[in-house]
């Protein structure tokens, strides 16, 4: 029977050995488990509650568990330092081999930077944006802490095999990133749960033109439209990216001709305007022109959605010869030390600082929020993951989501503008 990528993934990993079809419940073998800050205290408490009196008795494979201290790095309080200390003890006790302990950055970006995710693998993480590894053809998805407890013990987990939705992207990649505009457009037009519990398969003539950075943005945001997986196929760009980072063998996923899709959505980017999500939901989307003139206090680029080289490069390129508007706080946070160094070597950081932007240590801080809180009545436009009420402090603040180009334009203007008006020659 012809299979989607998700069906093929879960067939390969199905413990029963049976072919997996959309709707089936299966128990699957896990290739990799990404744990970040939930790794210790809640895990230990859960172990005690479940009756393991000495905590988690083992991990199923110490080489396949990846622990990265991202949300709390560097720590902002002693309480968090104590939590990290507990994680260090647990990692040592359980013999976990891959531990990124003293490096700021977003776990998801580091998983990709260090080649810990390969095409065709089934990788889980206890963070919703784990789905982003679909950008390199990995079947990756967020799971819960209690699910992770089970995975750590057995290397197995239950899944419902998802239906698949094909998202066909057509058109020409402009000279600036538009991945954020694309996913906002999709959420605005098809609903912020159009892929609820489903597997997205991105395809179409635009895909070969998309950078790995743009694919990461699109896959990461799969969760903002409800997706279990958000998969790209593998092409030359994928193999180049992966093979530069790991020598582990892998077996990519591709759908069969004639596989069944529950839905197909098409988007031609040539006709797509710049998009923004207005407060307070991801699906509350309009073309940027309808939000024009909204005064802003803060602008941000960062997170696992938009903290990558191309997001920061476009900001630096557009800021050349311009200044951030007086009174606007423009926070830019590279997704990892790798990305930071890449930006630094390309001369971007100097340009950003000269223009009046602030560069923030890599990590989840600007999105989570740990850095850059908002006061009552303040407005922030941000290329990060979410705009929920109160996400950056005051519930009376307003958060707009947009791509890095639109954010940069707003930072210069002091209000939301169409980037085409701000930057000539786009």
């Amino acid at each position, binding site marked *: 029977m012809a299979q989607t990528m998700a069906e093929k993934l879960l067939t390969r990993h199905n413990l029963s050995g049976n072919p997996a079809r959309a709707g089936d419940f299966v128990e699957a073998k896990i290739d990799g488990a990404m744990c970040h800050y939930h790794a210790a205290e809640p895990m230990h408490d859960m172990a005690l509650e479940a009756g393991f009196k000495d905590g988690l008795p083992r991990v199923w494979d110490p080489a396949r568990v990846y622990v990265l201290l991202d949300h709390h790095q560097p720590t902002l309080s002693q309480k968090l330092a104590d939590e990290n200390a507990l994680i260090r003890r647990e990692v040592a006790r359980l013999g976990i081999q891959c531990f990124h302990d003293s490096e700021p950055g977003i776990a998801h970006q580091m998983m990709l930077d260090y080649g810990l995710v390969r095409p065709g693998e089934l990788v889980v993480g206890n963070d919703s944006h784990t789905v982003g590894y679909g950008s390199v053809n990995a079947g990756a998805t967020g799971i819960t802490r209690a699910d992770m407890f089970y995975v750590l013990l057995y290397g197995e987990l239950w899944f419902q095999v998802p239906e698949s939705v094909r998202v066909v992207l057509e058109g020409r990649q402009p000279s600036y990133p538009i991945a954020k505009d694309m996913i906002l457009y999709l959420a605005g037009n098809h609903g912020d749960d159009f892929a609820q519990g489903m597997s997205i398969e991105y395809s179409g003539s635009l895909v070969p033109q998309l950078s790995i950075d743009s694919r990461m943005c699109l896959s990461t945001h799969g969760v903002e439209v409800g997706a279990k997986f958000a998969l790209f196929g593998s092409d030359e760009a994928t193999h180049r990216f992966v093979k530069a980072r790991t020598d582990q063998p892998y077996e990519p996923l591709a759908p069969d001709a004639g596989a069944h899709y529950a839905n197909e959505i098409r988007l031609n980017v040539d006709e797509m305007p710049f998009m923004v999500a207005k407060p307070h939901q991801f*699906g509350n989307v309009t073309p940027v022109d309808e939000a024009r003139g909204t005064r802003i206090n803060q602008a941000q680029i960062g997170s696992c959605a938009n903290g990558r080289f191309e997001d920061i490069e476009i900001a630096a390129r557009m800021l050349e010869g311009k200044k951030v508007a007086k009174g606007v706080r423009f926070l830019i946070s590279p997704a990892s030390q790798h990305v930071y160094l890449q930006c630094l070597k390309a001369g971007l950081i100097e340009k950003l600082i000269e223009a009046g932007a602030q560069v923030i240590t890599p990590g989840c801080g600007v999105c989570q929020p740990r850095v850059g809180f908002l006061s009552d009545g303040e407005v922030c436009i941000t290329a990060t993951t979410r705009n*929920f009420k109160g996400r950056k402090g005051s519930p009376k603040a307003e958060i707009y989501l947009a791509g890095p180009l639109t954010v940069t334009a707003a930072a210069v203007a002091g209000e939301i503008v169409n980037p085409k008006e701000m930057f000539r020659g786009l």
Partner: protein
Amino acid sequence: MGFDLNRVIRGRVWKFGDSIETDAINPYYRYPTMDELKQHTMEVYRPEFPAQVRPGDILVAGRNFGCGSSRPGLVLREVGIAAIVAESVARLFLRNSISRAIPIFVAPGVAGIVEDGETLEVDYPEAVIRNVASGASVPLRKFPPMIEQIFECGGLPEFARERYLREQALK
């Protein structure tokens, strides 16, 4: 502690809209302790909720309940919510609820049969949700046996423990 899916649940309804996010349910980064969370859960949508919710109440929501970050809704159980019934549930919130044995039920159409403050009945054995006063009802989706077992055990860590003990006994 296991959750008995076969017990009929009846309670007063708190009704919420679509795409209620986990930042609203569990804003742990602002209120890190359970005591604080209990004072603030759901307040961005219903400021009176934390003070007025009573043990045994039922939370009814629209589609995509619990979207956003992967965070468990344990605080809702702590304030006394006896069941969550939604048009649809974001997948991580659903997984979170199953894996901690928090009673959650998907029942498309539920928002159309009940108003805030009315009494709702969740009858899992009969696979139906009823408005007690009006008699209106919609079907609820049953879980597969594997998930029913997780509820019975009291959650996935407890399920894991039972498996572990079984395997140790065989050694």
